[in-house]
């Protein structure tokens, strides 16, 4: 088939129109019920947001309610579990100092880190059982003591830190830590990464701690065919 001048002109014109179209960038507001975008190379909103929600809900569900209710029923396994955790937690509204999010995963989480902090902090503050300490006060105490967040696991450092917060007029009952870890499995050019968010609540007076975590598994493939081959056609988003 001979590629004549008219065809050539038309194809150039089409390319021109296409390239003009490509020059713009668009943005739009997502509605509440719109799904989060799934990151193609790393975890994104679709991974972190549910992880935070699950982990915080699990942690808070293990904490005793500040208002005690009386039950006239026989013992059940769940109430027994709550009682044992209650021994590690003070009754009533407790002040929680959220130290921060530590990233031990294989990925750089970039601008998500501070958002995760705020999201966890807000979720904890939303409950009746806890009252959060301002991040600025926590920062000021860390600056004053020059203690590293990971060094606060040592009782002596914890006392020093609590004393610094106390001097600022903020007595503290609990320290809250969040840690992100990941585990990667590679198979040729496809990989699976498991993201785990762990929340650890430490009672400053007793040193007892409770831990809860949530996990999301994600598959990364070079193309849709590889995804279907390794993870099946209807699995996941």
């Amino acid at each position: 088939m001979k590629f004549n001048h008219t065809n050539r002109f038309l194809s150039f014109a089409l390319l021109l129109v296409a390239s003009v179209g490509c020059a713009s960038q668009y943005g739009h507001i997502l509605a509440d019920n719109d799904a989060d975008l799934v990151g193609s190379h790393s975890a994104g909103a679709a991974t972190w947001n549910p992880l935070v929600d699950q982990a915080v809900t699990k942690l808070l569900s293990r904490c005793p309610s500040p208002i005690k209710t009386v039950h006239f029923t026989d013992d059940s396994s769940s109430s027994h579990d709550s009682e044992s955790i209650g021994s590690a937690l003070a009754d009533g509204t407790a002040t929680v100092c959220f130290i921060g999010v530590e990233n031990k995963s294989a990925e750089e989480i970039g601008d998500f880190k501070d958002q995760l902090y705020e999201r966890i902090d807000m979720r904890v503050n939303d409950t009746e059982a806890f009252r959060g300490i301002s991040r600025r006060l926590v920062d000021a105490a860390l600056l004053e003591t020059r203690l590293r967040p990971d060094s606060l696991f040592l009782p002596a450092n914890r006392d020093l830190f609590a004393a610094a917060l106390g001097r600022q007029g903020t007595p503290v009952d609990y320290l809250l830590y969040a840690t992100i870890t990941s585990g990667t499995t590679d198979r040729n050019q496809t990989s699976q990464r498991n993201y785990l968010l762990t929340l650890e609540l430490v009672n400053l007076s007793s040193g007892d701690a409770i831990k809860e975590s949530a996990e999301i598994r994600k598959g990364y493939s070079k193309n849709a065919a590889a995804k279907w081959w390794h993870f099946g056609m209807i699995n996941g988003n």
Partner: protein
Amino acid sequence: MIRSKSRSRDQNRSRSHCWVMRTITLLLLLGVIGNVGCSTPFKQLHSARDLFTHGQLEASRAALEKVKEKSPRYSDPAELDLAIIELASGEPENAERRLRNLRDKFDRVPKLETAKEIISMASDDTALTYRPWGYEEVLIRSMLSVCSLAHDQLDAESYTLQAMAKQSQLASESEERGLLKANKIYQPIAFAPYLRGILREATHRNYDDAARAYQLVSEVEPSFSPIGSDIKRVSFGSHSEPEHGVVYVIAFTGRGPILEETDAPTTTAAMQIASVILQEMEAEYDDEGNKKTISLPNLATVKVPEVKLPPSNVARIGVEVDGRPVGATETLTDIEQLATRQLEAEMPWTIARAVVRRATKEITVAKTSQSLGLEGIQGSLFRFAASSIWSGMEHADTRCWSLLPREIQVLRLELPVGSHELELSTLGWSDEVYRTSRPIHVNVTNGKNHYVVAIAPDEHLYTIASTDS
């Protein structure tokens, strides 16, 4: 009858000859005009660089403003240079605004601009919209961070994140394009993660992020000796001793690489790429529907840009605090190396484009000559003159961010809380002192970072201290 036919043929030939001569003269004239027109921004840019090097900021600014207004093809690189002038003049907020606009503008440039690609095939690569090189795009974001640090520090961290995201994007794009040794050529620039590291460390909370960033710096720039102690500090220690703060001296030393036109031999790799492009562009078919093969012109050399490093005596910046010498800056990023590596990576494509352009021009001239019915000596003369003049009007694309430094250097100073007087000096290769700045007063705050930016293209030194200092 025969005589009149012969006379008419002679008249036609003579008319055709006149026409050819007129065309050649016109082409020559166009060539001269074109070359004169193109030389002007080069001279002005060159003069702006020299003025900047010798401390004449206002004159340099005026020259760049002129290029920006009068030469649309060179306005973007001139604006990049203007941002450096603004930073050196102590106007980091203006430099930040300008760089932010340029960053957004460059991000909006589509990857394929068909109309301009076609025009560039008839002229040269300067007809294309200016796109900064990969490392320049990362440095735009890093410089934005520096401007922010010297100004209100509001968006400094965001810019460092953008710089690192840009690096990752460039690395994956180079892999997709199949550049040879893509990972080695598009190495991350150590300056971007270093800035991120120092900002994350200053939060006293995100030592894990700082450790990651410094680790990346040590992988990219293992010769930057302070990075070992930086990693140790963020892994086991704290930002600074109690009642101490930190002053970072960020120095832009030397005259950065510029691009100049040179003749490069056509390599086999480039000819292969050109051949593939040309076959697709000019695909023609014979009567039986078979694709005609097009032979590439026999070219020995083509015009391409090459990296040149203007001479500069300054090696590093010496620092004195309260009259006591405390050290000198050390190289964190070698921009000359980045430019050379990038140019090497792009060279097969640059040469291929030049070859394709030359082939396209020769084909066009041959077809024009054919359609005009020029044969024999006239046709050859026309083809030779037209294609020589047309190709002679070509220029290699030497547009670049020419006021970047040769090296980015850093010195970290941990100082007790209170007011301190810093004096910066330009040092030569044997540590001889060329020039010392006026004293810079820094009010060190407990556990905080402060920044002093020094720009020393040569012996002359410009200094800017962060506003909180």
